[in-house]
């Protein structure tokens, strides 16, 4: 990467930070990801649109196979180019990510866009100390001496509340516990003050008490840095506790989009209703959980019409046609012919 490019980037980064705080950091428009195999073609993400505002946390919820991870990998351009066909547009601070060159993406990733994955052990290199790995990110994107980078890395470890960061700096990933490793991942992701952090199931592999600590840490750091976060998760509890807005994905499509408050107060899509009902809750004991029957459709040949119809108890004939994502009430979108759900309650 040339030096001139680097300074340019720094300038544009600064201009964004001066911008209106409510400006969106990322705009995804009609994103489609198609995997072409020899035997079958799978549309993993089918026309997904959303935007994330500065300092906001957007949750993408869905079960396995709903396309939530593929969406994030497509934004980061981390999907294999020979098999994934990506269309639509991803606008990040005026730059079209889907049209960026490879080197352009490399200068953005880890710098202004960062990502954390589920399993910290597989995302850390076991043969380097954690300090060296954080240094690598800083030296790649910032013009700093090695000494300055080391100081910055230790400061980052301190920021993510790792006790005795100077000692930990010299340790290897296997010396750290799972929660500590995930903190190192967060430190690494935030080392260059990214504007957007994508966290793909960041706490799924952690125990609940550690999960609570890590989520709290992410919230606190977000308040300090104003980083926008996309949190990908299957855990509705995590969504309720740490996000502002939410999109619910089912079979590659967004089926509901609203604020977190709205989603848990009164969902507007039958899938979300079933999902909330199937959660065993701590405050009540019911004999049977509300279970959604059946399984997700085969994405190689999805049903025509609404993708949830075969499992939906509220299905009508009209469901054979694909519903659009419509605004049910201000800021609350649902992809269902029967929305608003108020009408379904006697």
């Amino acid at each position, binding site marked *: 990467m040339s030096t001139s490019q680097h300074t340019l980037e720094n300038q544009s980064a600064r201009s964004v930070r001066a911008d209106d705080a409510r400006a969106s950091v990322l705009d995804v428009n009609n994103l489609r990801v198609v995997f072409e195999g020899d035997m079958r073609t799978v549309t993993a993400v089918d026309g997904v649109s959303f935007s994330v505002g500065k300092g906001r946390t957007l949750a993408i919820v869905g079960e396995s196979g709903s396309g939530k991870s593929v969406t994030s990998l497509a934004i980061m351009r981390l999907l294999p180019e020979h098999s994934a066909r990506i269309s639509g547009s991803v606008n990040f601070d005026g730059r079209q990510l889907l049209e960026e060159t490879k080197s352009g993406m490399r200068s953005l990733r880890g710098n202004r866009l960062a990502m954390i994955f589920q399993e910290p052990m597989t995302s850390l290199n076991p043969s380097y100390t954690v300090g060296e790995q954080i240094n690598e990110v800083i030296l790649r994107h910032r013009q700093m001496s090695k000494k300055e980078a080391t100081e910055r890395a230790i400061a980052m470890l301190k920021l993510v509340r790792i006790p005795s960061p100077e000692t930990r700096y010299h340790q290897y990933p296997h010396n750290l516990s799972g929660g500590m490793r995930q903190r190192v991942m967060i430190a690494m992701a935030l080392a260059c003050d990214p504007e957007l952090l994508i966290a793909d199931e960041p706490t799924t592999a952690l125990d*609940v008490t550690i999960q609570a600590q890590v989520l709290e840490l992410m919230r606190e750091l977000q308040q300090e840095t104003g980083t926008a976060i996309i949190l990908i998760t299957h855990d509705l509890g995590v969504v309720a506790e740490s996000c502002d807005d939410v999109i619910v994905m089912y079979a590659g499509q967004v089926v509901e989009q609203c604020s977190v408050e709205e989603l848990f107060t009164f969902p507007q899509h039958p899938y979300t209703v079933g999902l909330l009902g199937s959660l065993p809750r701590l405050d009540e004991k019911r004999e049977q959980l509300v279970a959604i029957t059946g399984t997700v459709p085969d994405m190689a040949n999805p049903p025509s019409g609404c993708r949830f119809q075969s499992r939906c108890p509220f299905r009508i004939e009209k469901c054979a046609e694909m519903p659009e994502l419509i605004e049910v009430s201000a800021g609350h979108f649902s992809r269902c012919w029967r929305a608003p759900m108020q009408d*379904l309650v006697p």
Partner: protein
Amino acid sequence: MTQTTTTPIIEARGLGRKFVVKRTVFGRPLASVGAVEDVTLRLMPGETLAIVGESGCGKSTLGRLLMRLIRPSAGEVFIDGQNVTNLSHAAMRKQRRHVQLIFQDPYASLNPRMTIAQTIAEPLMLHNIVPAGQRARRVAELLEMVGLRPEQASRYPHEFSGGQRQRVVIARALASEPKAIICDEAVSALDVSIQAQVLNLLKDLQKRLGLAFVFISHDLGVVKHIADRVAVMYLGNVVEMGTADEIFAVPRHPYTRALLSAIPVAAPPSHQRAKAARLRGDLPSPLSPPEGCRLHTRCPYVRPECKTVSMKLDVEPNGHANACAFWRELPAQDAAEVAREPRNPKLEELFAAFEAMAKRPAQTVTGG
């Protein structure tokens, strides 16, 4: 299958297990970890006992000890009144018919080269439960019992989804007509909607067959749903044991409290509870567990005496046991902490409508 006797199906007395983690070059043990220490519990017919705790607390080791898959290094195990602690391998195999085990990953516990029918017929054959000629019929019955179609018997595991595979595993466990099933994180790998299906199935089977479950899980929501009694473990010790209602309504041990308050609740942000009793830091290394009460390095209510106090369970007449010596002096739980998550009554109606409509005359429901 249900008997009116009061013999516990599984009983553990002072059960413990140490694993050697380091040896000298000559093979002499240098360091060992006490994975499970001094656990005493009983599993009665038809009840569900949940064992909860974080990773590394010894819950899975305890599960394996209870069906004597591993030999205890201290204490005794009784299955159906018979002491199986020192039973020979062959004799133990016969006993295992009565206690079956289900693991987390259904794909890893099914042989990819065997059809579902072969898999389920194997225990029938090994224990000679059903004559060879009738095995196919019994397999079909078992498949129906777990909500699969008998036509699917000739398929291979890869042709099924995760939830269906777990149903196959359950069918295999049921094949030997056990009295108890140990479910080790049996629903943790499944998506919530599928998890609910499997939980409903387990409850239904328990009612029909009078099974007892040992339900090992880290997910307290699931445990609350399924368990009659709960044992909470921390670093190899049971720290609290009691009925599920008591544990969830008035948890006594600081660890139980912290565990309950750490669970993210799927309620609107405006209804979130205040979080008080959080644990600090990470789990200490089980190789050198802290002296005294093992929780004292992380406990929000720690006091100097905790470093020397023993973790002996204080058992009350009603069976509620708790290892915190000072639990009576702990601050009462905040009202905000105990507060139930109020749910929108309109939402409840919507759930009811969803449920009622889902029970409409069966459509062609595929899989599950």
